[in-house]
């Protein structure tokens, strides 16, 4: 039976898909939903910031499937636009964390010695300042806003990326092919770029996915506190802050942004978990 199945055209592709962890599949599906939201938001003719006289419309109202908020703004359009905002902030923040963390981690792991010691202490200090705390500090110095929050979330992500990069470099460094490259007379920089970096990407991609989930949660929290995305721009956290004051009148402007945050965070968490299982050779059958 098995050999017959293998002979059928397309069987190989199916088994590749079938071999993926379920969390990876569900995570990828949820993230494509978020991407679809961004796409729909771009196509949506309704301006998410346009106020209408139709205030606090319930769900399934004509023209407002998810109702409207106290200013008559369309909740669906704002939730969709919020997806764009969340992905944008997440992308920049994870980009900062990944690039700085990768650089520091690779340097510490590859060169070792006193540089490693100093970087470890510095990263440990940064680790004592969570994203929210860094954001408080940065918001006090510069004006609270989306840039400040992205930088704070990105900086807070640096230690985790650096730790993963350093540990992976240390394990790769001990492998014989690095010794071979060195024996061939390759320079440090070339070995790092061509032989070490490509081989530590797996754990970093996993970390990036998990950091994305953290970034979306942190952005929502900061916007909720008034330290992130500023009005009238739609952000899921910002929408919750605004809707809180009249939630006894209608719960919908509170419910939907929260569900959207949960969906996005779940997607990136599952994708990260799934990728980790998939890339871990011990768990692969």
């Amino acid at each position: 039976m098995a050999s017959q199945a293998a002979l059928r055209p397309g069987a190989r592709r199916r088994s590749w898909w079938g071999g993926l962890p379920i969390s990876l599949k569900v995570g990828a599906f949820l993230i494509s939903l978020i991407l679809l939201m961004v796409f729909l938001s771009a196509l949506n003719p309704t301006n998410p910031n346009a106020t209408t006289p139709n205030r606090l419309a319930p769900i399934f109202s004509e023209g407002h499937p998810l109702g409207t908020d106290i200013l008559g703004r369309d909740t669906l359009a704002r939730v969709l636009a919020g997806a764009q905002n969340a992905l944008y902030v997440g992308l920049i923040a994870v980009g900062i964390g990944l690039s700085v963390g990768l650089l520091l981690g690779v340097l510490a792991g590859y060169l070792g010695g006193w540089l490693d010691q100093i970087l470890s202490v510095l990263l440990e200090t940064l680790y004592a300042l969570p994203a929210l705390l860094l954001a408080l500090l940065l918001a006090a110095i510069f004006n609270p806003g989306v840039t400040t929050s992205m930088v704070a979330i990105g900086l807070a992500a640096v230690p985790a990326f650096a730790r993963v990069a350093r540990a992976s470099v240390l394990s790769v460094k001990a492998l014989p092919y690095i010794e071979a490259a060195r024996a061939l007379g390759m320079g440090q920089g070339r070995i790092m770029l061509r032989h070490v970096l490509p081989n530590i990407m797996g754990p970093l991609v996993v970390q990036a996915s998990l950091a994305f989930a953290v970034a979306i949660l942190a952005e929502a929290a900061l916007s909720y506190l008034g330290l992130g995305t500023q009005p009238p721009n739609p952000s899921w956290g910002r929408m919750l802050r605004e809707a809180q004051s009249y939630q006894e009148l209608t719960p919908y402007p509170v419910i939907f942004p929260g569900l959207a945050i949960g969906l996005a965070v779940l997607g990136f968490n599952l994708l990260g978990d799934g990728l980790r299982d998939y890339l871990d050779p011990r768990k692969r059958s």
Partner: protein
Amino acid sequence: MFAYTVRRLGFALVTLWLATLLVFGALLLIPGNPAQAILGIDATPADLEALEARLGLDKPPLERYLNWLGGVLRGDLGQSIRYERPISELIVARLGITLPIVVASLLLATLLAVPLGILAARKAGTWVDVAVSTGSLVGIVLPSFWVGLMFIYIFIVWLKLPLPTSFPIGGWENPQRALAALVLPVLTVGLASASFLVRLVRGSVLEVLHQDYIRTAFAKGLGERVVLYKHALRNAALPVVTVLGLEFASLLIATVVVETVFGIPGLGSLSLTAISARDYPLVQGVVLVIAAFIVLMNLLVDFLYALLDPRVSYA
């Protein structure tokens, strides 16, 4: 053990010192004149000069840092501009509200997560495990402030439970009202924390259950109860204790958001007021105190780990 203690202590001290440098250095980045930023554009030159002198802006940064650090070492974080009171006094007063929330939430989280995690590990792969794991995933991905808002809607708007939606003005003078005001915040933070812990307890118990000495214990003919409670849990507790310590410190800052949901004048609202009033010394103080809590908890956890697990080497 002695050498390890000294080294670990030294490391914590260096981290703390670097944190003071970072917190102080960050304020040097303020664009323009900080006194102007605090007072606004309508300030008179005399007012500006007075505030500059009070903030020590007329002195070089190094001297200002050393003065500030000297104060910090004596427990004096300076004066708040907004409140005109010593910052350490303000922080201690707010900790009196935030700490009880954090401690009660952790307690609730432990009481929920430990039995549920053990149950899920024992019944791994069954519907009980799937239900517990799904529940914990839901708790992890939903933002705690949204859950708090939902709790307000469900318990107060919908079920009309007689719970106050804000902390009494007099604080703990009216303990009954104050406690009632903390029920929903503790439920919110505690459930979020329990979601993380359940995963950890489950994973940790599962890992221990697969080890050889557990098989040996079963082979000796011991019952499941004895093996679980006498052999497995003791070792499974180790990572859980560690995370509990770290969770304590991170809850201190995570509570900021939940405090805003429930209108609780804790450390969170103090830091938000400090930012909107551009009360730089107060921001410095709050950030430093929380960072210090995190460093100290890390230190404590490391010591506890070495103490509880004889396999951890001190070399």
